[in-house]
């Protein structure tokens, strides 16, 4: 199947200045990753802060140009930002950000903002746009009187619905959801997650769902990629990975999720903090925190290698670990 969007060997390097007069040091926010999303399906991207998951989302949307590798949408290379071609492609690729209050204009009513993409992309005449607005509000469960309000007059859940309606206005083929429910209360989170999966089922929208919350990612994803310091360390079927993660970092991450009720996997507590992305350890970037690291891990970076069960793992000791857990 032809993927809707694919990232092939994509890297994004920022230059980070150290000190006032310091020279810039390269920070590999995303380092040679390859991912793809099929139409109508969801790719979950998980990892801790600084792992490059949001940069991955921005690369997928074409908001950033990769320093190497390429991003293709429907088989064509993503046009560079701000050109006419890029602008017209915006309607197919939309972002749902984490903080809806920050993403909404406080001086415009919610309805005006939901309808704005239709104006920008010249979709429909006035009457059609009004019908479309009503349909969008209905899809995300907002009433017309709520949409007539300003962002600060709505609750967090209602604002997130408004941001989602705005993203859906142009009928995009792909939504990049960057921590879309992290700021919401648990009971509201469930409403928004159900709404996202319902909309996906009804409209066949593909999603890249970025989150630090593994429970939420498992709920919505058809495939999942675990990132650590700019690289994918394990990728595959969410049920397989979350039930039996293979990469030592994925294992620690899964075991660190606090669950109400009895714990299935023994808890692995990692020592130390995630290293600074500007100061990547040599070899496997995870080796300083890994209890299984060997001399090879300190010098040689493991590749992301496909395994018999279909998942891909970047660990020198993956075979041993798979045998031990079998």
């Amino acid at each position, binding site marked *: 199947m032809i993927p809707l969007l694919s990232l092939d060997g994509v890297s994004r390097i920022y230059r980070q200045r150290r000190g006032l007069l310091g020279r810039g040091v390269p920070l590999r926010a995303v380092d040679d990753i390859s991912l793809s999303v099929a139409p109508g399906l969801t790719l979950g991207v998980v990892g*801790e*802060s600084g792992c490059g998951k949001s940069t991955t989302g921005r690369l997928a949307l074409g908001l950033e140009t990769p320093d190497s590798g390429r991003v293709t949408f429907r088989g064509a290379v993503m046009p560079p930002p701000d050109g006419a071609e890029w602008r017209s492609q915006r309607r197919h690729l939309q972002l749902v950000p984490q903080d809806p209050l920050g993403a909404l204009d406080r001086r415009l009513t919610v309805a005006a903002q939901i309808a704005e993409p239709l104006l920008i992309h010249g979709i429909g005449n006035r009457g059609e746009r009004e019908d479309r607005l009503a349909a969008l509000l209905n899809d995300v469960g907002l009433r017309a009187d709520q949409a007539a309000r300003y962002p600060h007059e709505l*609750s*967090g*859940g*209602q604002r997130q619905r408004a941001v989602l309606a705005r993203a859906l206005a142009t009928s995009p083929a792909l939504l990049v959801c960057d921590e879309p429910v992290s700021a919401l*209360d*648990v*009971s*509201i*989170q*469930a*409403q928004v*997650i*159900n709404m996202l*999966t319902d909309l996906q089922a009804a409209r066949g929208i593909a999603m890249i769902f970025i989150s*630090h919350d*593994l*429970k*939420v990612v*498992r*709920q919505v994803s058809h495939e999942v990629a675990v990132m650590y310091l700019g690289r994918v360390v394990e990728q595959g079927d969410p*049920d397989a990975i*979350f*039930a039996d993660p293979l990469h030592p970092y994925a294992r*620690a*991450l*899964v*075991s*660190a*999720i*606090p*669950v*109400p*009720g009895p714990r*299935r996997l023994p*808890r692995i*507590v*990692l*020592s*130390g*903090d*995630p290293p600074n992305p500007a100061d990547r350890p040599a070899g496997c970037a995870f080796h300083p925190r890994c209890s299984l690291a060997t001399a090879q891990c300190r010098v040689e970076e493991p590749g992301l290698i496909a395994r018999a069960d279909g998942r891909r793992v970047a660990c020198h000791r993956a075979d041993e670990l798979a045998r031990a857990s079998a």
Partner: protein
Amino acid sequence: MSATLVSIRDLWVSFDGHAALRGVDLDIAPGEAVGLVGESGCGKSVTWLAALGLLPVKAAVSGQVLLDGQDLRTLKPAALDAIRGRRVAMIFQDPASSLNPVHRVGRQVVEALRLHRGLDGAAARAEARRLFDLVGIPDAGRRLDAFAHELSGGQNQRVMIAMALAGEPELLVADEPTTALDATIQAQILDLLRRLQAETGMALVLISHDLGVVADLCSRVGVMYGGRIVEEAPTATLFAAPVHPYTQGLLAALPDMTGPRRRLTAIAGGVPEPWNFPPGCSFAPRCMSATSACDAALPAARDVGDGHSVACLHAHVPEPVRAVVPA
């Protein structure tokens, strides 16, 4: 029932005439770990800010907060200062904003040691270093001279915990201590709190929106909604057999980590704003079992056995399971 360290009795708080807390009763035994869970605006933080006299003056507070039988609410500021940070310490969600950015972190811990334990000079610094070691800050001697911005979020939270331990408190109130941290760092801090509690024998109140975090660390949990504790039970009981419709709804709304994926059961509607609490049960507008009686008055907490209490008129209480011995 063992002796009680802190006993909160019928605590009410209102801001500008709007009730934020509506009659909270809670007992903490010495050395016990109690969790308070709930969504934003439920009053879980306000309960402890009010108990320790940390709310702004415009807050109207009534009720009793007894520490060893002495009501903190009636104490003079100087007497309260001798308790806060000494016998009862508190840590917050965002450690970086709780620390002073222009003073070295070691100096801030030394200040707490001087205030609460009368230590000075080399003795205070040695004790600060011991505390840094205790909370697992690597290279403690050098980190004493670091500024907050030079440390990671997890390390800053460790500094805050070290500072809270400076007074050798009998109770540590941790308000969302791991919410701003990454999952693997959260696991480290939870482990640290568990170890410190076991080593020092202090009681712990863990305030969190995350049921999993509370389940991990606490032996007893209170679920708050709309300014009240709606259900309270030993942790295992609460997660295995929740009785209040809100607790049941919260657990059903959480995605599972294992087993088949199911559609989440969302609770309809939204959390009520404090200026808009219904007169009766706060949860009634979202509750499937609500009747007109629920709107009439606040439901009182009733005991349903084994340290389990619930404030709901309609809660279905499971029959006590009787062991059936085959003949």
